[in-house]
């Protein structure tokens, strides 16, 4: 298996969506190809980190909650009347 083909299938490999025979070919390629192996490891790290983003919002900066609430309140009043 060539690098390009291997890299194209890495997300599917990670998701367990490739047939066993294809998975074997990819894994053999990864064992012989440090660059592709590096890509696979990096993609796994990205997926794991992305999952953690969904579990906590600490890495985001939030705007003033009160200011947005005041704007919503004005629109609500306009809508009601």
């Amino acid at each position, binding site marked *: 298996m060539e*690098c*390009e083909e291997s*890299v*194209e299938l*890495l*997300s*599917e490999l990670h998701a367990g969506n490739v047939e066993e025979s294809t998975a074997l070919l990819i894994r053999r390629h990864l064992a012989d*190809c*440090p*660059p*592709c*192996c*590096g*890509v696979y*490891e*990096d*993609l796994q*790290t*990205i*997926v794991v*980190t*992305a*999952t*953690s*983003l*969904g*579990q906590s*919002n*600490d*890495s*985001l*900066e*939030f*705007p003033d*909650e009160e200011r*947005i*609430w005041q*704007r*919503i309140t004005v*629109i*609500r009043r306009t*809508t009601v009347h």
Partner: protein
Amino acid sequence: MLIAFPIRVIWWIIIGNIMSIADDNKKDGGVVTAEAANKKEPTDLELAQRSAKGDGDAFEQIYRRHFRRVYALCMRMMSDPVRAEDMTQEVFVQLFNKIGSFRGESAFTTWLHRMTVNLVLMYFRKASTRSELLTEEGETPIQIVRGTENPETMPVVDRIALERAVQQLPPGYRSVFVLHDVEGYEHDEISKMMGISAGTSKSQLHKARLKLRQLLRQQAALN
């Protein structure tokens, strides 16, 4: 049906409830008094029903309870703090208008989450980015050139660096990545929400991850 809810959305609901309880304890100085223990926090459904009857305080409680989650989702999908703020406002205005239609058939957080995603996607469509969302080949595929990759140089992916990199993705890639890898939706759900095939969703997700890798490496090189 449990399988219809992405695992991370279920996690979202559980943590939301835990955070609500924790906030209550904080208000009491960390001491759970007998009075506080007996005081039952209203559920989202109860607040929604009261809001639908015109109870403004109930609606404000819903806003305070869910503001951060709604903003976080908008920010991750839109990657622009000003637009994310405007969209958060729009979500809660829409919520105010439609809250009477929430019947409690699904978790409120799931319902609100889906409403937020739909409004953001509608915004993208109105902003004439639909072609980008639908394009399978939204970006030139990243080519791996032998000898140029060194696993040792891959930066440690921290959450802030990833947030920053996600903001630099093209909207189509970003939506699929946020919905799948961050929010936990399956490809068939994303395909319905975005009006693309499941195959396109998978393809865009893979390209988004490769693009993120490239962006993270660029960020690390600058530091």
